[in-house]
């Protein structure tokens, strides 16, 4: 498998476990002690245990007066441990990424030892959104973004969303420690809210003839517009109120051309800043007959506008500043389609043993689009927007990629370009002679548990292609299997340093990378020094 083996991290909500759980017939126990954030024992706490597929494996147990608990009759495997406190589930050894939990091993090596389960309530952020007159803003949208690391850079990833109630109040709970940005915006569209909720009113007697341009409530972010962020600690109860100021905003008008007959289309405006979210100003008009559209209340800033109609789409970046934008033309073009043929797959390999994806090479991180597998096993990319992409690969079952050819050239370690309407084929050759990296994260000579491990699979530090994020085990080790021959760069950093989500760029820490060069089928070792927030290894 190209990825983590026995890493001990399970993605929340996903069924597929990354954990290599090969239970044997032996019976083992899991002993622990539940303590609060100050190390004091928590008694009468209900603690539950699941396997890596989220199936309860035992009846919940209750901690004793010293906080101690034990599960018995377990297989040699890895389990998910969680406690219910104040109506929420808190998992063992929670990391900043709320999408994952750390699994706990059982077996002869661990028998008799006791784990320390720090059960710390999640943080809560709440507040009130008011307008410039001090009145509550109802139905205002609250967006929380968590600072993370992806595709070679620090990014804000959407974390939670909330809406203010009739008192202008909001509350977001269940937050793990980390760096966040919080934004509030008046609801511009009539979805249970006033269609004019984002339009700031004029006080006093208004004059229709001299009314001027409408003013709209501006998005307000705490601590400031991204990339500014703030730190949320364990069990914190934060109050963050907002006052939405108003300002002149602008209209974006245009036409969608070349729509397929009898097909409706949609137009979406995205903020193209660090938080990179769909923020739909008031769509005041869309005419399916002539393709015209209009948004109003668009704050100055950088945006991306996209139109979609079935398998055809169009998109462009726009800058709004000081004036309306009119006569924007979005010409819909068919996407490309690519059949993916996998060659030399060994007998008995799973249908999803090879996954191929495309990730845009644009300056900002973008979602990887994975080829879809039909019930007959055929893999295909449909409606791929014209552009340049890095190929992403993931394999399992002792299979690795040998080559990927597209458009008459090798693209496994390179980028490829898809043109509008292109119909093409991608040939993927696989091998069973795969290389492996067995690594350990260290700091001052000692292993580091649960460190973030980043492996650069393709591309360069300046222009990362395919990157693999992993987490070290309790003993600081990690392993990656299913690798093609090549030169790999690895870095590691702590996930628990406040305000540090990862290196701002790989190019700046090139000299601190652990380098592993692997031949076909080779097992390589890597000692990866833990990076400090400043970028230097510890």
């Amino acid at each position, binding site marked *: 498998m190209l990825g983590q083996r026995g890493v001990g991290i399970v993605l929340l909500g996903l069924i597929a476990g990354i954990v290599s759980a090969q239970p044997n017939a032996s019976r083992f126990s899991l002993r622990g002690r539940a303590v609060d954030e100050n190390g004091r024992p928590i008694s009468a706490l209900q603690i539950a245990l699941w396997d890596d597929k989220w199936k309860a494996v035992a009846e919940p147990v209750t901690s004793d007066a010293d906080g101690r608990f034990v599960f018995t009759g377990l297989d040699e495997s890895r389990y998910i441990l969680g406690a219910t406190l104040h109506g929420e589930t808190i998992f063992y050894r929670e990391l900043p990424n709320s999408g994952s939990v750390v699994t706990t091993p059982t077996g002869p090596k661990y028998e008799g030892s006791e784990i320390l389960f720090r059960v710390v309530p999640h943080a809560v952020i709440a507040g009130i959104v008011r307008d410039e007159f001090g009145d509550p803003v109802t139905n205002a949208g609250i967006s929380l973004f968590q600072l993370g690391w992806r595709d070679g850079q620090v990014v804000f990833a959407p974390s939670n969303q909330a809406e203010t109630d009739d008192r202008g109040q909001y509350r977001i709970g269940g937050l793990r420690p980390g760096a966040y940005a919080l934004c509030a915006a008046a609801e511009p569209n009539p979805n249970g809210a006033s269609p004019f909720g984002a339009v700031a009113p004029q006080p006093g007697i*208004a004059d229709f003839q001299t009314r001027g341009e409408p003013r709209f409530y501006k998005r307000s972010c705490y601590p400031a517009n991204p990339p500014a962020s703030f730190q949320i600690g364990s069990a914190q109860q934060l109050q963050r109120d907002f006052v939405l100021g108003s300002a002149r905003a602008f209209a974006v008008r245009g036409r969608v051309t070349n729509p397929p007959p009898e097909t409706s289309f949609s137009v979406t405006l995205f903020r193209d800043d660090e938080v990179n979210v769909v923020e739909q100003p008031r769509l005041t008009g869309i005419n399916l007959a002539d393709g015209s559209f209009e948004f109003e209340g668009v704050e100055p800033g950088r945006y991306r506008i996209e139109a979609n109609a079935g398998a055809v789409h169009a998109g462009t970046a726009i800058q709004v500043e000081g004036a309306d934008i009119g006569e924007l033309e979005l010409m819909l073009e068919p996407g490309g389609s690519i059949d993916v043929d996998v060659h030399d797959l060994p007998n008995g390999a799973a249908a999803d043993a090879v996954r191929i994806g495309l990730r845009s090479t644009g300056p900002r991180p973008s979602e990887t689009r994975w080829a879809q597998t039909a019930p007959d096993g055929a893999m295909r990319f449909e409606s791929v927007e014209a552009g340049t992409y890095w190929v992403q690969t993931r394999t399992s079952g002792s299979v690795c990629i040998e080559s990927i050819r597209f458009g008459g050239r090798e693209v496994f370690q390179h980028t490829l370009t898809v043109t509008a309407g292109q119909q093409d084929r991608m040939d993927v050759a696989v091998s069973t002679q795969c290389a492996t990296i067995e690594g350990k994260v260290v700091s001052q000579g000692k292993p580091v548990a649960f460190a973030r491990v980043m492996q650069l699979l393709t591309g360069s530090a300046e222009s990362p292609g395919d990157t693999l994020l992993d987490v070290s085990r309790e003993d600081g080790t990690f392993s990656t299997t299913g690798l093609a021959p090549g030169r790999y760069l690895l870095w590691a950093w702590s996930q628990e340093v406040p305000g540090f989500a990862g290196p701002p760029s790989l190019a700046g820490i090139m000299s601190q990378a652990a380098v592993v060069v692997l031949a076909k089928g080779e097992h390589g070792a890597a000692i990866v020094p833990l990076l400090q927030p400043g970028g230097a290894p510890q």
Partner: protein
Amino acid sequence: MNPARLWIAVCGMVCGLVPASIAAGAANDLSGRVVDAQTGEGVERARVMVQVTPPGSNQPATLVVLTNPDGGFGVRNLPDGACRIWSEKAGYLGGQRSGSQASILFSDADTPAPVILQLTRQAVIEGRVVDQSGAAITASIKLFRLILERKGGVEFQRDMQVDGTGEFRLAGLEAGHYYIEFGGRFDWPNQAKKRAYSIQFYPHAPDLQSAKAIEMQAGQVAQLTLQLQAAPAYEVRGRVPAATQRPAISLHLPGEPDPGMQFFNPSWDERNENFTFSGVPPGVWILEANFSIDGHAVQLSKTVRVADADVDGIALEPAIDSGAPGKP
């Protein structure tokens, strides 16, 4: 300015609330007042939307003005044409919903008279959902309203999810009689313990017929404690033979699936392709599976009765007489 002839169409319940003698000024000026429907007092800082569509245009222009401390507002120099006015304020029912709106046609205007827009205070039901020990629990709530004219008597209003604080708030309610259905969410430890919270109607009724209506007046805030009792729960196990891939399976109460009161994503045995729902309280449930065959969406469903034991061996298959693998 033209002399004015005013035509008023008042929408919804407000027909009697707007003075019949509204007239536009010589300059198509408009003035008015937003008042509290219960007290008659002016509502300060209410938003008044004035939307005008000049003759020959299909593009309305909207002005949003704010009322003064007496609830008064005014707009000068409105063009001829159709004009719609409504008002909103946090804590009151939405201007369009409560009917406090007016439509005016400016053409041959006469002497203006102020428009009176009445805002009705919202009613609010709020409180906590707790277990038998008084501890807050995650829950789902459904709100129904008694509608005498309606067949069956009640109308579904909305649902909401209650987080671990147990606190809920149902705002924006009109005066009337309401019923609340509530159920604790099926948290994981209780699934393993084979206990779950049965679904109830306020205060402690098993069904709507024996539930107590909550009478709400305009402006009233009712504080409720919704208490749930943990009861034995069981497993529902089975398979979907027709599915070639893992299907999406859910278990919900009869009627429209309610996200808060249904089970989904059961545990799945890859080898035997069996599903297991845990922590299911006794009752009549609808089991549903969604998957695709040759690109065609297939939905299968079956009624499952859970009494006092696990239900095993369910085969969710298409009806024999349908001749098709399901309902596309």
